[in-house]
């Protein structure tokens, strides 16, 4: 996904001299091609995430579209107030880009696990969530945000994920179907959890529809509820704690938009990381096997 991200950004930077990439001293072996090709549209701000957001806000307030890249918690929690006051409140064209969603960097320890980032970023009312499951969805997310500029959060996993989706153009709260068989039950994933769902398409989820939700925000929640209310059961999966995560968001949308369906709402179950994930170290699959909880 991060390869798709940087390749598309290089392509877009050629067309748009106001596209800017900031990094906070991370992205070695990823961002150099952009830096070499468009040095005037790139800055490594150093190990200084608060300043990265502020500088990005300044650039964006002058008409730039800023992409600010780092790992999980660093460009999010570390500079939460800058994102809240300077980016989201001013509705600036600034995309926070993280790599290492969930426990992608499992062996690097808790500091590098992104398991509460969705909770922070989706609480920002003007910020659009972009959580692709593969390189194609990554491109679709970037194309959307460049055509519809504003505050956004692009949550990437790592590199090397296979392409499992097929839509090149996605709008907010579009379901991106990976498997559709007119089932009454749907598996709904966002981000890398789409790969987890896909890997079980012939086993656990054999008789289910499977879809990802790569672009979402509460502003578009009604659209999702209308679509999902055709199902009897929804199982939501994510690589995040339940507090403030994607599962919680889906629950909230059904509460907020209860006027969008008639009769009984679908039953909703969730698969998420329980709090025992905190402090675990190891390969992602090792950690997931220990902490994935379903209710």
């Amino acid at each position, binding site marked *: 996904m991060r390869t798709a991200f940087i390749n598309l950004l290089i392509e877009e930077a050629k067309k748009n001299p106001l596209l800017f990439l900031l990094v906070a001293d991370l992205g070695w072996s990823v961002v150099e091609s952009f830096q070499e090709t468009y040095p*005037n549209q790139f*800055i490594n*701000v*150093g190990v*200084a995430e*608060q*300043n990265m*957001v*502020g*500088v*990005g*806000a*300044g*650039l*964006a*307030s*002058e008409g*730039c579209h800023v992409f600010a890249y780092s790992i999980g918690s660093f460009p999010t929690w570390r500079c939460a*107030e*800058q994102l809240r*006051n*300077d980016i989201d*409140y*001013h509705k600036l064209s600034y995309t926070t880009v993280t790599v290492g969603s969930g426990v992608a960097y499992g062996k690097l320890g808790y500091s590098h696990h992104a398991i509460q980032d969705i909770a922070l970023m989706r609480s920002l009312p003007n910020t659009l969530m972009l959580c692709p499951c593969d390189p194609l969805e990554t491109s679709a997310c970037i194309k959307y945000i460049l055509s519809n500029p504003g505050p956004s959060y692009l949550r990437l996993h790592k590199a090397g994920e296979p392409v499992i989706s097929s839509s090149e153009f996605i709008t907010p709260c579009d379901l991106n179907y990976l498997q559709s068989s007119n089932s009454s039950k749907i598996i709904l994933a966002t981000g890398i959890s789409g790969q987890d769902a896909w890997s079980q398409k012939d086993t656990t989820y054999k008789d289910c529809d499977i879809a990802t939700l790569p672009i979402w925000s509460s502003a578009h929640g009604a659209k999702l509820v209308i679509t999902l209310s055709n199902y009897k059961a929804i199982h939501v999966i994510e690589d995040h704690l339940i507090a403030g995560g994607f599962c919680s968001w889906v629950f909230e949308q059904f509460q907020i938009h209860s006027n969008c369906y008639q009769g009984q709402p679908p039953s909703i179950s969730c698969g998420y990381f329980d709090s025992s994930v905190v402090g675990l170290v190891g390969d992602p699959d090792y950690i997931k096997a220990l902490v994935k909880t379903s209710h």
Partner: protein
Amino acid sequence: MSLNSLSLATQIRVHSLRMVTEAKASHIASALSIADIIAVLYASILVTYPKNPAHPERDRFLLSKGHACTAVYAALAEMGFIPLNQLDSYGTNGSCLMNHISHHVPGVEFSAGALGHLLSVSAGKALFAKRHNKIWRTYVLLSDGELNEGSNWEAIMFSAHHNLNNLIAVVDKNNYQSFTTTQDTLSMDPLEEKFASFGWNVYSVDGHSHQELTLALSSAKTSQSRPSVIVANTVKGKGVSFMENMVEWHYKNPSLDQLQSALREVLS
């Protein structure tokens, strides 16, 4: 519109005192502290377009110590950005003239309230101007207490590293913050040496001398490679004797009697 900076400073003090009294708001001493700096900036330094506040060639001015907003609102009204009678709405329900500087007010570049934000934002604007060969400059006004925030020092390093000679910061060094003096809270002296050691072009002036402020700000415009900072040595509550260097006027609002006394002093 051409205004004399001394008379503008007086009007800023008068409007600020009336606004905070009527709204029962805080931070009057902080506004009085920067009245002369704001007056010199708007009357003599900044390129502004009051009838077209978003004019692309305007200088950018950002108030990082957003709690002192009444001084800026007053200047904007005197300059013709907003009607003078709009100041009466300060602090009222639904007014865009809220108690911390708001970008919803014509002429205000950026909102602030939480401290330690706008030096970074200003650096971003200055960087944009440099890379796109713009002639406008970015000015940012900070408080000395605000420099407790570490984010400022990230921006101070960044601005020097990128040779942002089109960025001019003014520090309102009134030596007080909300509980007591800056010296007793978190000592930052010698401030000038700190900025200099970080690679900035440093001026130290009497922050109530319009001549010194004008000279320093004009000289800072000619910096060839480095960002500039004007350390403006000020008196918190300047112009109202019973507020000067009295820490409680960071939060207290004047009674009607105190307002009349204060106005007599300011207008004398």
